[in-house]
């Protein structure tokens, strides 16, 4: 499903964010990526949807050879990968429903399909009654649900999230995690970079720990393992 082979990333300013990283993630897995700030978690995430390109190594995600992808194929690849951010990245001028529909409109789906899919997804994330509300009238947790709905609406095989609970209180963080677990139960791979010790320790899933750009630990049913 996801495979990184000896991947290194050096930014143009000379910072070595990742060096010699190799990982294999199977379809349907739920993986936490943990590590101190500046360790290279976001870089790891960004390489997977080609926001950044590796300096060395190979990256495969859902059948796409990410670093060999032609410019024209990038949009197609992005439709198969759902990405969720710490700051939600919603359009404030558009309603909840329009924000989610946006991801379908770019695929040139028919209006009927868009209407049906958006309704289904909003029910899944529990926001069916807020479809016509603007993002700024929602709580942080609800805004993140909209972000997740948008990531899911194209039925991707993998969801990648970079600190999705970073801006949320514990209660909202838990409900977001529950949502990811439900998505994962339906067979979608979830990769989530996080700082949230409680969530990691309580849920006992695979944990990949990164420090100074290298994988220092990779265990099934692992712990967060830092005292920060």
């Amino acid at each position: 499903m996801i495979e990184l082979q000896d991947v290194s990333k050096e930014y143009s300013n000379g910072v070595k964010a990742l060096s010699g990283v190799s990982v294999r993630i199977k379809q349907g897995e739920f993986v936490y990526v943990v590590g101190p700030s500046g360790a290279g978690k976001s870089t790891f995430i960004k390489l997977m949807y080609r926001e950044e390109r590796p300096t060395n190594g190979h990256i495969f995600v859902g059948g796409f050879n990410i670093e060999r992808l032609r410019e024209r194929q990038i949009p197609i690849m992005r439709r198969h990968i759902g990405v969720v951010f710490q700051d939600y990245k919603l359009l404030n001028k558009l309603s909840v429903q329009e924000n989610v529909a946006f991801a379908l409109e770019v695929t040139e789906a028919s209006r009927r399909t868009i209407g049906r899919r958006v309704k289904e997804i909003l029910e899944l994330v529990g926001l069916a009654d807020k479809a016509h509300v603007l993002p700024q009238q929602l709580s942080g947790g609800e805004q993140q649900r909209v972000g997740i709905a948008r990531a899911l609406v194209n039925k991707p095989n993998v969801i990648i999230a970079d600190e999705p609970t970073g801006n949320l209180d514990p209660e909202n963080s838990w409900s977001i995690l529950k949502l990811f677990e439900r998505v994962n139960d339906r067979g979608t791979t979830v990769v989530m970079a996080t700082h949230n010790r409680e969530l990691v320790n309580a849920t006992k899933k695979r944990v990949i720990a990164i420090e100074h750009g290298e994988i220092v630990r990779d265990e099934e049913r692992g712990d967060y393992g830092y005292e920060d």
Partner: protein
Amino acid sequence: MKIRTMGRLTREGCKNLFRNGWMSFAAVSAVAVTLLILGLSMILSLNVQHISSNIESQLQINAYVASNYPAKSLPALETKLKALPGVRSVKFVSKQQAMKEMKALLKQNQGIISGLGNPLPDEYVLQASNPRATPLLAKKVAGLPGIAKVQYGQSFIGKLFAVTNVVRDTAIVFVVALLIMGVFLISNTIKITIFTRRREIEIMKLVGATNSFIRGPFFVEGTMIGLVGALIPSAVLYEGYRWLVGNVTLFPPFTLLAPNDVLFEMSTILLLCGLFMGVWGSLVSVRRFLRK
């Protein structure tokens, strides 16, 4: 790309025009002013060209035959004149004919020349096939035996050509400068609208929008700005010029071109320039944001 998508992108582009109301207004005004000046200078230079070709086509050389030249050699002289390179026409005016014309001109006052016999010489009237070569031709004619004197608007011709050249060259420089300014203004306007929509573009790319999908609305926006910016000055110039031609009376060779002759060509060029500025301006400014 599907037709439905094109419709959507067109609607988006038009909506953006209104969303960014003031910027769009500024861009349209900039294009309109640019093209208004372009149109004005076109009308002006077309008419200057028209008037100068009127004048040029009337340029002629009067070659007077020497009074002692034998009449029986005249046909030979005419053959020689016709054989000169660059001659369009040669017309013979005999001294009798010249006298008749003179009398017709003087009408009731013809008594003043009745006692003089006929002092007028025989004359050839020539036209050069290229009016600008008139001075050269005149020199050659003067060199032929039997021609006593040659006349053409010597000083006048030089000035006329100098003036028309200057008018034409300044018009070209002016117009090119205006077009560049117009492109710059449009691309700046679109850059500002893109800047305010950077986040939107970023998210579009993130969820898998193709570059042409992202470009679409901006393309439409630029096209509309260019189109409206061309239609306004076309309409203003059309009405203005028609009014001018209808209300000002002029005498040949100083006549104006008929409105329909000028305006069709001019509106087409303004429209093309407007579209060019709009499309180029928008594509140039989006390109930078699509690269990464």
